[in-house]
């Protein structure tokens, strides 16, 4: 449909099919060699027909691929580029540093030193908050950053998987935010309203959250299947319906915390909370284990199950899938239900984990929208989503420290995340900037979403 590459890949392949990449690369950079040669590059020496010359050594292959536009290289360079732009933002928004640029011709060292100090300090804090602080003493302090990173990662894995799964089925689920919102409402209500024993209570709350998300995914799914209404529009609209529903339900009696006058619900009972993994002082909780489990399950579902095959077939070419006897309508509904279920679990994580224990208007933050970025960064593959969520979780955790220690506001993290995905989504741009050689698997296939 809107796919610029007329040949849709077979459903057995990963979404970024080589043939498509080769073609799009060739189109984006007219000087690049023809498609077949490009594919050969990844397996043999560059610009040589496969038959000629001795096979290059493993080390040489590695070095050659290092500067080719493969997934890892493009991702790393995208992060580097994003951080460079971030550094510029930090410098231009710091009046003191900016003042040194007033006399840069007279004393250039001043300007450079001041810039370097402010930027390096900010990014050092980002790292210390996300991974490891060399000055930390004791187990809790040393594990703190990792614990924070994993706490932020867990819900992003769920929403990222939600978006990625829908992408693979040919649908663009912008509604993870709304699905997570309904999920968090039901999970929280089940968490404080039901008198259940520990363990069972947690399970019931998680299921309630998942069902809430599934319901919110079902609506655009059935509308798409029955009327052809575009899921992008409907999920955007449902996001806002969910937001208003949340802000309404928080202040209802029976939900609102009776001891408070502001918009906050009763707290979730401890019997419904996810257990903490590393003691009470560290926030990391069992949600991250569930996230890994969900990743494994979705990977299995996509690559090993009948449903996954049908889903990928519909995503690659609905007409062909229908001809082959797959019910496209049923698949669309099912994809959106599962996607909603995952997003609902992501929302549940926010209130059953250690991030919050009661509903507030901003309880799920941006996890739904971040999930879109995570899915794109993870190249819409389950394990890729997990890694991408880890990077985003780390940025979030480090951003908190950067804000409190360096006074660089948390929004810089949003900028970095958006920029990373922009550079990922346009690998031709990254390639052009760094003069990378063409290689396979660099182009993110984002044209899965059909136009309106």
């Amino acid at each position, binding site marked *: 449909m809107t796919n610029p590459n007329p040949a849709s890949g077979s459903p057995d392949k990963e979404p970024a099919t080589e043939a498509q990449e080769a073609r799009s690369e060739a189109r984006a950079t007219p000087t690049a060699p023809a498609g077949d040669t490009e594919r050969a590059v990844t397996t043999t020496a560059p610009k040589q027909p496969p038959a000629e010359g001795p096979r290059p050594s493993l080390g040489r292959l590695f070095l050659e691929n290092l500067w080719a536009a493969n997934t890892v290289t493009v991702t790393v360079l995208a992060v580097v580029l994003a951080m460079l732009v971030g550094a510029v*933002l930090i410098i231009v928004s710091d009046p003191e540093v900016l003042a040194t640029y007033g006399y840069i011709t007279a004393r250039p060292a001043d300007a450079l030193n001041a810039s370097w100090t402010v930027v390096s300090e900010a990014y050092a804090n980002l790292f210390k908050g996300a991974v490891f602080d060399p000055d930390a003493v004791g187990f809790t302090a040393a594990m703190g950053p990792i614990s924070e990173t994993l706490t932020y990662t867990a819900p992003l894995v769920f929403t990222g998987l939600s978006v990625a799964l829908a992408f693979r089925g040919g649908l663009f689920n*912008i509604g993870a935010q709304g699905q997570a919102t309904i999920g968090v409402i039901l999970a929280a209500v089940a968490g404080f309203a039901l008198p259940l024993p520990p363990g069972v209570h947690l399970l019931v709350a998680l299921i309630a959250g998942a069902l809430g998300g599934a319901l919110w995914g079902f609506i655009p799914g059935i509308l798409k299947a029955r*009327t052809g209404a*575009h899921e992008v529009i409907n999920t*955007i609209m449902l996001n806002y319906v969910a937001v208003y529903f949340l802000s309404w339900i928080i202040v209802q009696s029976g939900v609102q915390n009776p001891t408070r006058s502001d918009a906050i619900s009763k707290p979730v009972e401890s019997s419904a909370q996810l257990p903490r993994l590393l003691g009470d002082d560290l926030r990391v909780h069992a949600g991250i284990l569930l996230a890994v489990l969900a990743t494994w399950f979705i990977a299995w579902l996509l690559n090993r199950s009948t449903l996954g095959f049908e889903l990928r077939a519909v995503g690659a070419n609905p007409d062909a899938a229908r001809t082959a006897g797959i019910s496209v309508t049923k698949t669309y509904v099912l994809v959106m239900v599962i996607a909603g279920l995952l997003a609902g679990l992501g929302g549940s994580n926010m209130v059953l984990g250690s991030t919050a224990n009661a509903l507030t208007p901003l309880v799920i933050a941006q996890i739904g929208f971040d999930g879109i970025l995570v899915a794109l960064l993870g190249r819409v593959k389950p394990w890729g989503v997990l890694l991408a969520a880890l990077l985003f979780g780390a940025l979030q955790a480090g951003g908190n420290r950067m804000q409190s220690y360096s006074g660089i506001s948390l*929004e810089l993290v949003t900028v*970095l995340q958006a920029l990373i995905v*922009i550079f990922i*989504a346009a690998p031709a741009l990254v390639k052009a900037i760094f003069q990378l050689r063409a290689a396979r698997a660099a182009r993110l296939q984002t044209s899965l979403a059909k136009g*309106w």
Partner: protein
Amino acid sequence: MSTTAVPDVAVTAVDEGFWTRARKAGAVLLGLGVLAAVLFGALATDQQARFTLSETEGGAALEINGTVGAILFGVIAAAAGAALLAGVPKRWFTLLLGAGLVAFVLSFLCWQVSAAPEGRNFMPLVNVLRGTFVLALPLIFGALAGVLCERSGVVNVAIEGQLLMGAFSGALFGSISGSVWVGLVAAAIGGAFISLLLAVFAIRYLVDQVVMGIVLNLLAVGITGFLYERLMATDAAKYNSAPRFSNWEIPLLKDIPLIGPALFRGNIFLYLGLLLVLVIHLALFRTRWGLRTRSVGEHPTAADTLGVKVLRLRYRNVIMAGLVAGVGGASYTLALYSFTKNMIGGKGFIALAALIFGRWSPTGALLAALFFGFADQLATYLGAIGSSIPSQFLAMLPYLATILAVAGLVGRVRAPAADGKPYIKG
């Protein structure tokens, strides 16, 4: 939207058989009307429901007994629904549906106003009308930006980001220069900056346009939020105290009752917004540029064959859209409020809804934006009179209406055929 996507649907939205679109709408309207007559009639009180033609309780007013009004208008709505259900010529459809919906709203208002506490049981129509336009204004600019983009085949989900960036740069440069006009130009350029990114990545690098729009929204939230914290929050006097456009009263016209105070005592943005609707409507349907834009949005290959520069036209239209949306963002910061983080708060997405609800036409977008603005204003009003209707449910109205519209329940909407599809010359 594209009903072509799924042929094996159980219910196709084709007008066939007994349940045509008119009959479905009629059945829904009949149900609403009966509900209004019975429920609103029962809940309304015997007090007079006053609709004053001023900003206060006094002055000329339309009055009707609450119960009588609620039942009467409910019956009118039901009658319109019944007429549609019985089957009327197609040309009556829009009129009857419109009249029925208006009657339903009036029935609702009769109930609400008459049931309001003593001293507050009146509705100042001037305030409501003016509020409707004020609240609709950013939606009008945003939806027009959408029209310009999408009519030429580029999906614009980044309206939110364009409005936000416009609001921010308007506030920033307006404050630094101390001039509203510099602020206005800067706001337009700020909006165009986001749409330029959209254009480059969508047209040059063929990135999916919806993806790009979503990412650009986040980017705009990030950049403006970051610079707000760094600059405006630390030195608001220097960076966030933009001068504001004063209201311009138009002689003679301002004295027309009801419409005058609401429409002809506004600021430059109100006049500019309404003028732009007219200009873009005429340009789109009466000029060479408009014909080319529409043809590029529907069938770029054919347009290219006839010598239209498809990509250049798309670039130009997308950037123009950014200029328009940027001015829309400035309608906040150069007229009403100082800049705050994420101050657009989803208005860009309601503008997108207005664009779709208005079927991708400037006038349709204007009407949809006014409808959404009215719903917004009504929520404020009902909150002020202590209504039992939660304002959140009224706030949901635009989104629910759009879902119904897209699902083909209110009327068929169809996007430009090439909307969202990158064009590769070949």
